[in-house]
């Protein structure tokens, strides 16, 4: 099953909204990474995470590796490392499993996101 169909399978944009709420709650509760997500503007943060999850599920988006690099550069300055990246991947995986996405598909999504690690961490 392709990633594009995962996006459609879980219900497109509306379902991603639900996924974002679950995912955002997980990262805010995780003291190891919450500082990177805790902001005055929760709506803007919500929109960013929606774009991220849409991308992860293969939905319509136009992120590039360079965008990811530029967007995360300030966080790298603040100490973003592999362990934070790993935590985000785990929370996203758990979110998708909670929503009933197959383990196998979650694994494929994680593999795809691995390809962004270097960009996100500025390497």
């Amino acid at each position, binding site marked *: 099953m392709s990633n594009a169909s995962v996006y459609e399978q879980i219900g497109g944009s509306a379902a991603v909204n639900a996924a974002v709420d679950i995912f955002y709650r997980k990262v*805010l509760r995780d003291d190891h990474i919450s500082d990177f997500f805790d902001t005055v503007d*929760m709506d803007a943060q919500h929109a960013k995470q929606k774009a991220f999850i849409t991308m992860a599920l293969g939905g319509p988006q136009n992120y590039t590796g360079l965008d990811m690099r530029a967007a995360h550069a300030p966080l790298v300055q603040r100490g973003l490392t592999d362990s934070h990246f790993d935590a985000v991947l785990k929370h996203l995986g758990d979110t998708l499993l909670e929503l009933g996405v197959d383990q196998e598909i979650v694994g494929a999504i994680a593999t795809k996101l691995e390809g962004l690690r270097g960009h996100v961490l500025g390497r």
Partner: protein
Amino acid sequence: MVQIFYQNKPLSCAPEESVLDCLERHNLAPRSSCRSGICQSCTMAAPNASLPAKAQQGLKDAWKQQGIFLACVCRPTEDLTIFDLDDATTTTPGTITQIEPVTDDIARVWIQAPGLAAHAGQYVQVIHPDGETVRPYSLANGGRDGLWELHVRRLPQGRMSAWLTNQKAKGQTVLLRGPAGDCFYDNSNQQRPLLLVGTSTGLAPLWGIVHDALAQGHHGPILLVHGALETRGLYLGKALASLAVSHENVRVVRCVLRGPTPEGVQESDVRAIVEQQFSATSQAKAFLCGSPDIVKRLRKQLFLAGMNLSDIAADPFIVAPQ
């Protein structure tokens, strides 16, 4: 460098500089208040321009299509030609008919403005007769018979609030622009639990919303929490108590951070009250109004407890820099 064209003059805009900062740097400041993209005091127009999305956040679609934007959060990435908004076409006149002090520094103010169409709980920009001072105020009622209610707290050096709370303002005409904001009752689910939390005059929109909800027949449980630093920040206590007596689905908690506490007022923080007395489920709807810090923390608290972010309407009252 990006150029802004205003009143036929080209002004250079520094990278990351907002239109408002740029105009002020050139001594051409438009009106402004919160400087953070919320109050809509500094709206200007740039017809047919491509504007950053942030520059139009929270504006109604009709305004977006006309190129209306918020100067304080507009950081242009290409040349921009901008205009002042014509007050005559975007505002409604209102006459101040009554000013009723309810504490030493808070007054209920009624404005007769039959041309205004808004929901109780939304906010409007009030434009002072000087034409320069503009401040946002929440609507504490639904404008029955064209009569709208505001709750105004007099701030030290408050150019608008000192004027609005003074009896001399009675009979004067102001202009109202708006409405804006998503703090209002929506009757699509009349069973859902409602949480209304306000600090000080953050009660104004809640007062409007709770009456609107009851008038429309809301029958789910309603918890209204009114908090303040000290009792002088609380008002309408008797009216709130009788609202709870006459409606079995309404509970009211009044609290202050620092005592003394008169009868019916607890010494507690609004967040603790909400934590103890409200079940934050994905069915609930919340309205949070007043102190930006409390609104922000409470929004996060309710979200983490299980509410949907989109069901938490927040209206932080940002005081204009003097």
